[in-house]
């Protein structure tokens, strides 16, 4: 241990620790930490691992419901009961900075990391979704990042054999140079299969499984916890992690097989902060201590120092605590799968995390203090200056739409609204033969069958379940009003689930924000969390886990605040599964919710895609989100679906009613290059006191376009009204055109032409 640098104030600062934090460390350790120990503290106390800037805020989230089996923050991922002894585990996680540096591998290892979190819980991962943000596509560097990220996600998920069933992609200048890559995975297990990440049982051996440790991903957690600068990126470039989905697939199969033997006392993946985080967290959770010897850890590069081995983030590695006497079972199973393993230590009762190298102690730290006693900061929050300008924006200087025909075309072609088929066709979204609604509708629906459960399930009549998933966040709205925008993100997600026939049961969120030391950016975060919390409470969809990614900025400033919300819901019966496209000529088109908000001065145009696309203005107060209205809309829609009245359902979001209607006419894809078109005649001429642009493209919340058979139309409208949801028939399905009549005139579009713009926009930009 010759060349360890001396601990200087500069070195401490380089490790992202403040002088106060260093004092606290000295107190905890009772002496000066050595270099290796300093490294350990720096990653464990990074924002990424400790949530030191956000922990206090996150306490505001609702985290309880009768379904919660493992709650937020307890383990790697939460677990929800879905009935009949079955449960799901899901979580979302960001890999923003690694993807900015190396898009393909950064995104790929992001997928790998979240999948590991799920099977660590004892669940079999059965599907993935993702939420992506990039700069604008006319920039070749943005295109490089976009192409790399999508193929990285595809590579990892496809090879691993997990279907990627849904997602979202937005393009906005604020993400230029700092793309967002949020990956979500969901797994299935029986209640008795829940695994824990605790080091239980003094004397139990600790196993390392998976490929050898290299110098890759050194201090990635710390990297994620500072601003993205050319300097920090350069440093990280020398330590790019390369993912091996094949290895992870083997690792998962072996772990699930091993868990079934009952020989495992605790299991934890090595994600951020690698070996460091997994050893001290398992000891902290178990209320025990742990001792390992680094000499036993398989190493890929010669001459690695303890510091490097402990902080490496090499992928596809797991830490397993085995019940003493059952080591042979681990060896047998890992040999069967041709996976490397090594016994590296044992559980102690000292409460200390003791790391040796060839028998010499290189770190000796109190595990629980390291894992749980990171400082908690209450940062200063101040309303951002730009908001006063936003609030003073009126439509007075904005002329009403002159050419609605062209405006709709432009909106459909706008990459944030255009079809994302260029993305999702690169993902295998059908492997495992469970995907009932493929990407392209409001929410994905998968079924859970016996082989979704680890080891299978031999019940005579397996109680199949249907799970719906969506991920949403209109970050323009969040930027313009973090509280309302965040509520709306939750509401949109719930609405998308309802449109597919599902009731929401739980939420996971990814808070992508800028530097928390900037009071204006911290204010965004604070307001956003308040909105998310209210939203999740309203829908009875507690937060079961999530991820915080701060410091998302580049030299030009912070990203738009982006709290991505992913929700899982349950569909009761197969016949309730509903998709967004029109089904048959002659069906009635009904609008649930108000066509316009006549009390709002901006009538839903504030922050709208329309203003951005047609008037190149990203400003104005975004529409308010009334959670009571949203909830009633959701339950009413579900009631109609469950009474077999609804043939299609699609919510209004970006681009408003006109875009939603257009999507209903052309989003059904029979096969490759074979869309199915079903036009409609829509009559909105009775709607008055609203500008045409607001009527067509306003984005007020709480609206869903449904279709019913001609016969059921009146019944559906009456029933909706009875339940307190405004409803009106607005037209009929049929023909090859979308025809729209308003009090000021008539407009029509060839469906085939609209489809062409919408379907090919991103592909053309990427060609």
């Amino acid at each position: 241990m010759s060349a360890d640098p001396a601990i200087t104030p500069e070195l401490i600062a380089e490790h992202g620790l403040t002088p106060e934090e260093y004092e606290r460390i000295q107190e905890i350790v009772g002496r000066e930490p050595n270099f290796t120990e300093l490294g350990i503290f720096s990653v464990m106390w990074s924002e990424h691992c400790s949530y030191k800037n956000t922990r206090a805020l996150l306490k505001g989230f609702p985290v309880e419901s009768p379904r919660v089996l493992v709650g937020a923050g307890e383990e790697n991922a939460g677990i929800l009961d879905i009935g009949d002894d079955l449960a799901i585990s899901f979580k979302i996680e960001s890999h923003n900075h690694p993807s900015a540096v190396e898009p393909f591998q950064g995104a790929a290892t992001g997928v790998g990391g979240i999948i590991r979190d799920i099977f660590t819980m004892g669940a079999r991962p059965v599907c993935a979704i993702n939420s992506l943000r990039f700069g604008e596509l006319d920039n070749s560097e943005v295109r490089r990042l976009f192409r790399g990220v999508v193929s990285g996600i595809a590579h990892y998920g496809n090879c691993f054999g997990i279907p990627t069933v849904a997602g979202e992609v937005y393009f906005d200048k604020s993400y230029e140079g700092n793309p967002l890559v949020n990956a979500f995975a969901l797994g299935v297990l029986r209640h008795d299969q829940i695994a824990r990440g605790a080091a239980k049982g003094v004397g139990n051996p600790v196993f390392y499984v998976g490929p050898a440790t290299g110098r890759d991903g050194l201090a990635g957690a710390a990297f994620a916890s500072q601003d993205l600068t050319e300097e920090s990126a350069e440093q990280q470039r020398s330590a790019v992690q390369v993912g091996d989905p094949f290895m992870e697939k083997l690792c998962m199969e072996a772990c699930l097989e091993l868990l079934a033997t009952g020989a495992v006392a605790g299991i934890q993946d090595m994600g951020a902060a690698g070996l460091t985080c997994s050893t001290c967290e398992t000891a902290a959770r178990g209320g025990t201590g742990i001792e390992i010897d680094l000499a036993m850890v398989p190493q890929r590069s010669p001459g690695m120092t303890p510091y490097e081995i402990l902080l490496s983030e090499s992928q596809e590695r797991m830490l397993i605590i085995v019940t003493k006497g059952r080591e042979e079972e681990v060896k047998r199973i890992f040999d069967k799968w041709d996976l490397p393993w090594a016994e590296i230590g044992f559980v102690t009762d000292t409460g200390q995390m003791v790391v040796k190298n060839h028998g010499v102690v290189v770190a000796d730290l109190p595990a629980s203090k390291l894992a749980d006693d990171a400082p908690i900061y209450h940062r200063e929050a101040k309303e951002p200056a730009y908001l006063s300008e936003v609030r003073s924006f009126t439509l007075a200087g904005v002329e009403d739409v002159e050419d609605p025909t062209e405006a709709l075309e432009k909106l459909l072609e706008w990459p944030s609204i255009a079809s994302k088929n260029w993305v999702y066709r690169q993902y295998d979204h059908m492997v495992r033969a469970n995907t009932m609604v493929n990407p392209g509708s409001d929410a994905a629906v998968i079924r859970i069958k016996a082989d979704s459960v680890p080891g299978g399930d031999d019940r005579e009549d397996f109680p199949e379940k249907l799970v719906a998933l969506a991920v949403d966040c209109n970050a323009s709205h969040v930027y313009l009003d973090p509280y309302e925008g965040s509520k709306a993100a939750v509401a949109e997600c719930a609405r998308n689930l309802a449109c597919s026939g599902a009731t929401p049961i739980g939420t996971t969120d990814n808070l992508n924000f800028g530097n928390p030391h900037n009071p204006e950016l911290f204010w965004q975060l604070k307001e956003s969390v308040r909105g998310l919390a209210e939203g999740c409470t309203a829908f009875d969809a507690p937060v079961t886990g999530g991820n915080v990614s701060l410091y998302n900025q580049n030299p030009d400033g912070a990203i738009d605040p982006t709290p991505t919300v992913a929700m899982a819901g349950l569909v009761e019966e197969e016949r309730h599964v509903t998709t967004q496209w029109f089904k048959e000529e002659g069906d009635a088109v009904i609008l649930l919710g108000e066509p316009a908000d006549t009390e709002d001065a901006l009538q839903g145009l504030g922050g709208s895609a329309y203003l951005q696309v047609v008037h190149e203005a990203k400003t104005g107060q975004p529409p308010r989100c009334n959670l009571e209205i949203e909830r009633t809309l959701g339950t009413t829609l579900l009631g109609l679906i469950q009474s077999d009245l609804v043939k299609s359902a699609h919510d209004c979001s970006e681009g408003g009613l006109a875009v939603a209607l257009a999507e209903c006419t052309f989003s059904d894809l029979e096969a490759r290059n074979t869309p199915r078109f079903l036009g409609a005649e829509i009559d909105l001429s009775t709607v008055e006191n609203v500008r045409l642009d607001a009527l067509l493209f306003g984005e007020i919340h709480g609206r869903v376009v449904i279709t019913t058979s001609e016969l059921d139309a009146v019944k559906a409208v009456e029933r909706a009204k009875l339940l307190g949801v405004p409803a009106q028939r607005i037209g009929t399905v049929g023909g090859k055109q979308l025809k729209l009549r308003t009090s000021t005139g008539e407009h029509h579009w060839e469906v085939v032409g609209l489809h062409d713009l919408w379907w090919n926009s991103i592909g053309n930009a990427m060609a």
Partner: protein
Amino acid sequence: MKAKVIITPKPEVLDPQGKTVQTALEHMGCTGVGEVRVGKYIEIEMDGDADTVKAKLSEYADKFLANPNIEDYRLKLED
């Protein structure tokens, strides 16, 4: 003239492909195999004299043919 670009994974970077080929060779009974690294080999027909071709290709190898984050490259010219 024909130019060749040989692209190899950087020594520090994990090469899952090479590792898998190595194990496969061992399983097939090929003895004495040490480390295996798998890279790419690109042959490009190009007009111009050696110097121009070399200059051009280095530029594009850096920014397009190889991924500088994880790969090294070498140029070779044939005559």
